[in-house]
């Protein structure tokens, strides 16, 4: 069994075929000239041994100019799987992504530093002390392991969340660079049975997290069949540079044959041209360079075409995820990935706003709708992210879940066929012949078959806007629902074999 996601029957495409091909050709030209600068020796050696032209560069850091010929890229595109399976602790949560099928899975992420708490203090009217109003107050603070557990727990119960990327960076006093990976993997996997994807803080922990996944999945072969974890690697830094450490990580993940995202995040205006043609040619070249390297490391490595393009804010030169152009770039990338028949890891739903509210709702709904319409297979960042991808708010994630239900409903295939038409023609004839001329009786079967969209679940009463309060209540309800933790025996083995996991995360040892 796999999750259904949202199958977009007629994906929205901005680019006509000629423009897609033009971007492809421009990317091929970029890869052969100027190519990429690599700060990673292994990547240079691998690419060089398969025909890439390499030239050593002078500078403070050792680096090489690598020019990748078109034939090498095309061969890699041939061997990269068109269908990628992402497994899950609960096999019913498996994700099957086919590069030619615009089935959208909605994923959390990304890894923010700030957790946004919410409280509802009561204010009294100065002129009428009997009038009280609750106003939501948002307070940012550094994220912790407990927050990550809470987030994974709630996202387990959010119906529209298909897979989990940790939403918050864990910054407790007892978390170090050495033990961060094992703790973030365990906290997430122990509180969520959906697919878990993450970046790595240090390559040294790769074997530990893979071993943890093997123990949970039931062994090495079981993990191969049901890859409950996968990795995000930003091996290319824009513009056109293989980064040393993440490229190392990428190569090692590929060697182990686990699914991996080749993610690039150029910023139009600073690290990529401000023109759409420019950022598209560059991001496509950057992703293809990573995919080529991955296929050379291990042919058939399951890869996702990872695109996180963004436009620069003109006031700060920071990322503007809420800008309209950011959605345009993401839709273009979904088309490019489909051109190569590769599953697309895409981005939507991030707001520039610092807190939930009108700006946040408008920005995130805009991008969530239009990007989802383009049919990317793995749509991340969609739940709870604020302030240009630096803040996570669980309340916002609960709201986003409701909004995605609406989007899913909107994107369903219209049911207009001969038998449906014959049935409604009969209805029309029947109703017109009645004195009251109402179709109400025909609502009932449709009402219970899921063909009518629901009312907004956080609708207020009267002239009050109760959305946040109602969503907060929903969040508390979800936190109170149990989650299926990793069983006691497996937990014991994980704590025995994997060093560095915080003892307080062992739910079977609490209070002992």
């Amino acid at each position, binding site marked *: 069994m796999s999750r259904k996601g949202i199958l977009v029957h007629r994906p929205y495409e901005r680019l006509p075929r000629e423009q897609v091909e033009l971007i492809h050709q421009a990317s091929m030209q970029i890869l052969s000239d100027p190519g990429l600068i690599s700060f990673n020796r292994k990547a240079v050696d691998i690419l060089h041994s398969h025909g890439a032209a390499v030239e050593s560069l002078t500078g403070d850091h050792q680096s090489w100019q690598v020019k990748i010929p078109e034939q090498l890229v095309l061969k890699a595109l041939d061997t990269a799987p068109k269908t990628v399976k992402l497994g899950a602790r609960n096999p019913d949560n498996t994700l099957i992504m086919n590069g030619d099928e615009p089935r959208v899975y909605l994923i959390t992420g990304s890894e923010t530093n700030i957790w946004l708490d919410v409280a509802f203090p009561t204010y009294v009217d100065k002129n009428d002390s009997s009038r009280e109003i609750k106003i939501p107050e948002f307070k940012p603070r550094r994220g912790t392991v407990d927050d990550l557990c809470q987030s994974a727990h709630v996202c387990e119960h959010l119906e529209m969340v298909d897979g989990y990327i940790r939403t918050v960076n864990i910054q407790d006093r007892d978390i170090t660079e050495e033990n961060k990976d094992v703790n973030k993997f365990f906290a997430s996997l122990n509180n969520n049975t959906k697919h878990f994807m993450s970046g790595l803080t240090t390559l040294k922990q790769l074997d530990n997290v893979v071993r943890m996944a093997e123990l949970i999945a039931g062994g090495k072969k079981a993990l191969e069949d049901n890859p409950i974890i996968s990795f995000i690697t930003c091996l290319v830094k824009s513009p056109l540079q293989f980064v040393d450490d993440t490229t190392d990580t990428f190569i090692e993940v590929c060697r182990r044959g686990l699914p991996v995202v080749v993610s690039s995040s150029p910023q139009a205006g600073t690290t990529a041209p401000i023109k759409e043609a420019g950022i598209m040619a560059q991001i496509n070249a950057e992703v293809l360079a990573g995919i080529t390297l991955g296929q050379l490391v291990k042919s058939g490595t399951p890869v996702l075409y990872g695109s996180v393009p963004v436009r620069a804010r003109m006031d700060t030169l920071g990322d503007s995820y809420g800008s309209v152009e950011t959605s345009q770039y993401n839709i273009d990338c979904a088309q490019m990935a489909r051109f190569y028949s590769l599953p697309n890891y895409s981005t939507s739903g991030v707001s520039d706003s610092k807190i939930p509210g009108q700006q946040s709702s408008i920005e995130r709904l805009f991008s969530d709708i239009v990007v989802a319409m383009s049919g990317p297979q793995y749509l991340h960042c969609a739940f709870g992210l604020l302030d240009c991808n630096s803040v996570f708010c669980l309340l916002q994630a609960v709201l986003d879940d409701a909004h995605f239900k609406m989007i899913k409903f909107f994107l369903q295939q219209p049911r207009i066929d001969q038998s449906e038409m014959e049935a409604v023609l009969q209805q029309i004839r029947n109703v017109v012949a009645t004195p*009251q001329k*109402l179709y*109400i*009786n025909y*609502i009932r079967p449709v*009402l219970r078959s899921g063909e009518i969209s629901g009312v907004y679940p956080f609708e207020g009463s009267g002239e009050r806007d109760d959305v946040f309060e109602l969503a907060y209540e929903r969040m508390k309800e979800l936190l109170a629902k149990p989650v299926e933790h990793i069983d006691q025996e497996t937990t014991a083995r994980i704590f025995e074999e994997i060093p560095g996991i915080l003892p307080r995360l062992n739910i079977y040892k609490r209070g002992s």
Partner: protein
Amino acid sequence: MTEGIISLIRENVIQGRINKNDEGMDEGMVGQPGVTELVEEALTSGVSIQDVITKGLSGGMNVVGQKFEAGEYFIPDMLASAQAVGAAMEILEPYLAGSDVNAKGKIIVATVKEDLHDIGKNIVSILLRGAGYTVKDLGHNVDTQVIVDAVREEKPQFLGLSALLTSTMARMADVIQMLEEKGLREQVKVIVGGAPVSEEFAKSIGADGYGADGFQAVAVVETLSSSTES
């Protein structure tokens, strides 16, 4: 036998099935007798009309009301059940005079002159029939004189007037004024409703009641009914 058929009537009211062709709520009910067929059978079998109405029809509607309050049923479900009861009451009406059942009363409803909107009025009619009232629906865009004439001839206990437009709601006041001029105002309670209508407006034109929606309209009629009886 009696208990069995009453129970079936109640169940089919809950299912909202007028006749054997209706789907109802549960699977596999098409082809089985609905409320109208069951009421006919009850009459043929000599089952007490009072039992049919109080235990079967009203008993079923009480359950429907509870399900609606609990969020299990939606308005279309309520209306389907009300329609089933209304259809049953039409069958029973000729037998009421000779029985010991007190009729709940007659209501004339109309959408006023120059207003073509009748969805609300139609829903109110269905719900009132479902509550056991005899409803005479004059339709939409009904001339003031026609409404007043109907009151004179039919002698209803209630008159329900509906308007959707701010430009036509004034016609409600015209009706009440003409009822007064013709000496008919005291014999009928006038209830008004419709999107632009408010409690305040209802009072200002001298109406006896105001219903914000179909359910409130029924509640207002029930309240006025009991106050008249007492």
